[in-house]
């Protein structure tokens, strides 16, 4: 139990470190070299990885922790992403049996589909909160170029996170129990 717990803590800390590095890249490094049009929401991909490949009852708390860190880089705050993250992870838990990550293409398509669910939910909640659905479409479409690029990058990111969470050998199926 002890080694498993210490591995969990270590993996979480490394994941948070990766998230911070990627958030700095998207909020400061990319704008500094001229990329200002679209933000790459790496927090979404990391949460999707956790939801799709890591099976633990503590998953909601991990989602919250990742979103708390993300909130330091975005006025989106932690609550919205946490809510959507849990919704997405619940959907993922039902689909785990049929999802495959055997090839890069399969990973990209899966990540893209889940990102669509994420952004539809996020836009809907923001519009509900503001009591105005006028900008729903715009909010959703504005995020699309970023999601496509993230999907292209997702096999690399998943490979890296596979190493961190030791999920390499268990491709797809029911994820790795921690």
């Amino acid at each position, binding site marked *: 139990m002890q080694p498993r717990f210490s591995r969990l803590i270590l993996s979480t800390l490394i994941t948070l470190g990766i998230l911070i590095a990627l958030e700095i890249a998207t909020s400061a490094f990319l704008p500094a070299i001229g990329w200002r049009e679209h933000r790459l929401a790496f927090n979404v991909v990391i949460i999707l990885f956790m939801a799709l490949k890591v099976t633990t009852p503590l998953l909601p708390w991990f989602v919250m922790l990742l979103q708390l860190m993300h909130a330091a880089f975005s006025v989106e705050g932690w*609550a919205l992403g946490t809510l959507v993250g849990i919704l997405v992870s619940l959907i993922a838990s039902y689909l785990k049996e049929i999802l495959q990550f055997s090839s890069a293409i399969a990973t990209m398509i899966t990540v893209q589909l889940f990102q669509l669910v994420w952004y539809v939910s996020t836009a809907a909640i923001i519009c509900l909160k503001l009591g105005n659905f006028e900008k729903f479409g715009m909010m959703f479409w504005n995020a699309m170029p970023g999601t496509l690029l993230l999907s292209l990058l997702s096999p690399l990111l998943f490979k890296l996170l596979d190493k961190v969470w030791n999920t390499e050998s268990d491709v797809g199926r029911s994820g790795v129990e921690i």
Partner: protein
Amino acid sequence: MRRIVSESSKIKIINNLLVLVLALYGISQKRFDLEEMTLFQRLVVEVVAPVQKGFANSRQELSDLINNYVRIVNTSKENVYLKEKIARIESDLFQMEEIRRENFRLKQMLSYSEDIGQEKILAQVIGWDSANQFKVLRLNRGSNDGIRVMSPVITHMGLVGYIYRVGPNYSDVLTILDPNNRVDALVERTRTHGIVEGVFNYRCALKYINRTESIEVGDRLITAGVGGIYPKGVKVGMVTDIDREASGMTLGVEITPSVDFHKLEEVLVLMPKVATTAQVTTPEPETVKGK
């Protein structure tokens, strides 16, 4: 075994419910127009913002680094040496050019700020919001420099936004490109009132303009000075498209902001006007009597 599984599912359900309740509470408390930084956020911002600042400061070095990397691939050592030498000279030239441009920008900002009878703080843009749905900038100045929430942020080109949240050494600006920022504006030529709202893609919309108003493409917009955030007369943008075909009683007016947000590097934060002691102190009765 079945018992262990069911206990694990129970824990999962309890965890999900707990975090969902927390998240729903968080969303119910969330404001998209103003926010106070939590202690945790302050801590993280204080740690990561210097790194963001580093990237913003080394903008020139970063582009040189990328250019140099592309240049030296597949070249001989001599070529690398010579190109490095050239690159160094070019980098010096670029730096001089960068300093010249910065000097020009700061002079413009300074001459503009002299016209505004309000205390102001010069700040550098060090980062952008990492989510797509929000158009927020991070500045390298915070409450330790005197910045307060709701302080207007401008440049010599026009209005940028207002301070949305503030930490001790860094602050975030909700720009006019963000749909949650609404600016009461005036069409300079016709003095028509409207509300400017962000609509993504670095454009804004002027809302609640009656169809009978004679607004034209090219009309300039300025702040109306209503609402207590922005001073009156700051340039907001220019009308670039009018949709007269749109249904309803109002016109669809597209605005291009005066500020080029792609090239924004320095901004001025206007400090709220504080009434001086002389203005608020009433004369003592004896002094009045003496007169």
